[in-house]
């Protein structure tokens, strides 16, 4: 005991000189010779003083700062912080070559041979109070800026229940809910583009969702929105609203694998005549195998089926995509996607597309992606396209959605 006490004293003397950045708590360092009672009391008092996150370090170093991305704000030692939201910005550019130039609205996809600004997205995100958080994302394109999403989310309703309201990407399938920077390819899936629109199904509306308390993931989402989407909806009467719902289930067959299955439906009115309805149904499937922290295989597939009333009758169209993304080392992904629309085919021509891509993420905050596409529409000759995409992200760590 004597020897260990001496060694401990020796260590105590030596420690401060080799730990320059250490922020000492206000109380003296706990001494192992103390009785647990006294020591626990000391720690308890210290914890009471630190009712605010990082207060222990704030008390120790007067130059304590709060960092938001690359910015740094001094925090008043009395604990007053500036309550700024998290601000982040993600820029996506692509050099593109098309053997046949795209026509019409391509959304955020590269639109011409040459250099394309796909999107600069600016996000403001914050917890508002104990009951709500809010997320606002603005999307700057080559021709202007639009509100990508802007919604509040409840945090403290009855367990399992949540309400979101504002402008949001509706929970239809998987691709539609994802922002450009979380896509595994440089451009949108064909079926999603043709049936939900080049910019996706984003509406002003309200979502009520419920996580059903069973031992596996089972989630119901229902949305009510204006239905302004010009691709499949956009009914002309004031009360032409869009009603949409989704059920998602997920389970882990083994420690390293996850499966997610979802079904979505949307019912609204289109602009081809008063009362003309559009119904879209979708099914999606995701399989992920992640044997190690930096290796994974993702297989994602989705099928969309649309019934579109127009003056000549009910038009049935459908389309699917299926892709595999393989993370073979920490920073590298290889992927291949197959797209087909025209299953069945009526308003939308039969088209298929094969898309291999290779992605390198130097860090979590930058991405370089090379992608090739072979696209064939009905009887027209096949077309080739190639992209070299670059993406950067500034600001706080964006968490990666599943």
């Amino acid at each position, binding site marked *: 005991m004597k020897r260990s006490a001496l060694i401990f004293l020796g260590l105590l003397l030596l420690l401060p000189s080799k730990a320059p950045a250490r922020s000492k708590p206000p109380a003296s360092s706990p001494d*192992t010779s103390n009785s647990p009672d006294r*020591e626990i009391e000391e720690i308890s008092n210290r914890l009471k003083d*630190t009712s605010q996150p990082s207060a222990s370090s704030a008390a120790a170093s007067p130059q304590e700062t709060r960092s938001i991305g690359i910015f740094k704000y001094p925090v008043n030692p009395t604990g007053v912080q500036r309550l700024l939201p998290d601000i982040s910005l993600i820029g996506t550019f692509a050099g593109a070559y098309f053997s046949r130039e795209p026509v019409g609205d391509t959304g955020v996809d590269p639109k011409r041979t040459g250099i394309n600004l796909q999107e600069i997205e600016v996000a403001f995100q914050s917890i508002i109070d104990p009951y709500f958080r809010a997320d606002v994302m603005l999307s700057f394109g080559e021709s202007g800026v639009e509100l990508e999403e802007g919604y509040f989310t409840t945090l403290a309703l009855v367990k399992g229940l949540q309400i979101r309201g504002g402008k949001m990407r509706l929970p239809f399938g998987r691709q539609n809910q994802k922002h450009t920077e979380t896509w595994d390819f440089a451009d949108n899936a064909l079926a999603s583009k043709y049936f939900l629109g080049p910019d996706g199904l984003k509406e002003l509306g309200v979502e009520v969702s419920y996580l059903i308390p069973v031992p596996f*993931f089972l989630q119901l989402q229902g949305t009510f929105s204006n239905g302004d989407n010009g691709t499949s909806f956009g009914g002309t009467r004031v009360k032409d609203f869009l009603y949409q719902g989704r059920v998602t289930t997920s389970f882990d067959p083994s420690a390293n694998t996850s499966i997610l299955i979802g079904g979505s439906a949307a019912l609204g009115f289109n602009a081809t005549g008063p009362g003309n309805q559009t119904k879209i149904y979708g099914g999606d499937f995701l399989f992920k195998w992640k044997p190690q*922290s*930096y290796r994974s295989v993702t297989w994602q597939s989705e099928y969309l089926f649309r019934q579109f009333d127009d003056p000549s009758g009910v038009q049935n169209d459908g389309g699917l995509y299926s892709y595999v993304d393989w993370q073979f080392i920490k920073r590298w992904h290889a992927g291949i996607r197959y797209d087909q629309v025209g299953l069945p085919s009526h308003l939308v021509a039969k088209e298929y597309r094969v898309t291999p891509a290779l992605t390198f993420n130097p860090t979590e905050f930058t991405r370089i992606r090379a992608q090739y596409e072979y696209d064939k529409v009905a009887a027209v000759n096949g077309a080739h396209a190639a992209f070299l995409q670059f993406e950067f992200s500034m600001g706080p760590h964006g*968490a990666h959605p599943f």
Partner: protein
Amino acid sequence: MKKILFLLFTLLPLTASAKVNVVGTLPVFASLAEEVGGDRVEATSLARGDQDPHFLDAKPAFVVKLNQADLLIHGGLELEIGWLPPILVQARNPKINSNTPGNVDLSQGVAILEVPQTIVNRSMGDVHPRGNPHCWLDPNNVKVMAVNIAQHLSEIDPQGKDYYNERLKGFVAKLNQRIDEWRQSTASWKGKQVITYHKSLSYLTDWTGLEAVANVEPKPGIPPSSRYVDELIDKTAGWKVKGILMESFYPRKLPDYLSQKTNIPLVMIPTDVGEAGIKNYFDLIDALIKKIGQVLS
């Protein structure tokens, strides 16, 4: 439909449990909750011991666990920032929202190392702006964590307060006794040089007096290039490095190469509970001391 609903609601009571349902982001946090909570808690973790705590998927199975939790224990200091925030929102569980009794930030009250003293930007790599979060590898910090957990448990389960305090006392007493033993067995470590893969061992080196002369990662979170490793090989000539310490989830290729070229042994070390034979915090530190001790002597 009615049948399904009926089935769902009859299943509900099965999922409910009389015990306090504790979810730790890492196995070591769940294990500390078991030490303090004993029979009154049921503790599980999201990550496994052999996974990099920075890189987990925000998968739906985690959402379910958090939805059913009475207490969430996380490391704080943005350790889990890449995956915990979205699942916490999706879990729709007001009991464990931040700054509620059901949410334990284990970094509170702990002496934090490597708090940046300059303006942080990401040319420094993935630096945690509020300091190094791997603080459970210093047993003195674990005392603070245990008290923190006991306080939160007592708040959400007041009937168990005396029980938790009794167990906390027992845990701290045992920890103090083991700290004395660990100090003796690491007394000769002071000043001995090691290379660590990531900055995850700063607390261990700080506490034991080991000197981490370099990291295999050139900057936190940035994998090394072979050129960087070649430079490192040249530098080792001027050092007396006894071992290269790395966790099993990092890629082995370049550390293996470094080890071969320099004849410095590569030691795979655990930093969390749940790896082979490591059932609790004491096992973890025992295993660390044994594995590192072998190359130092």
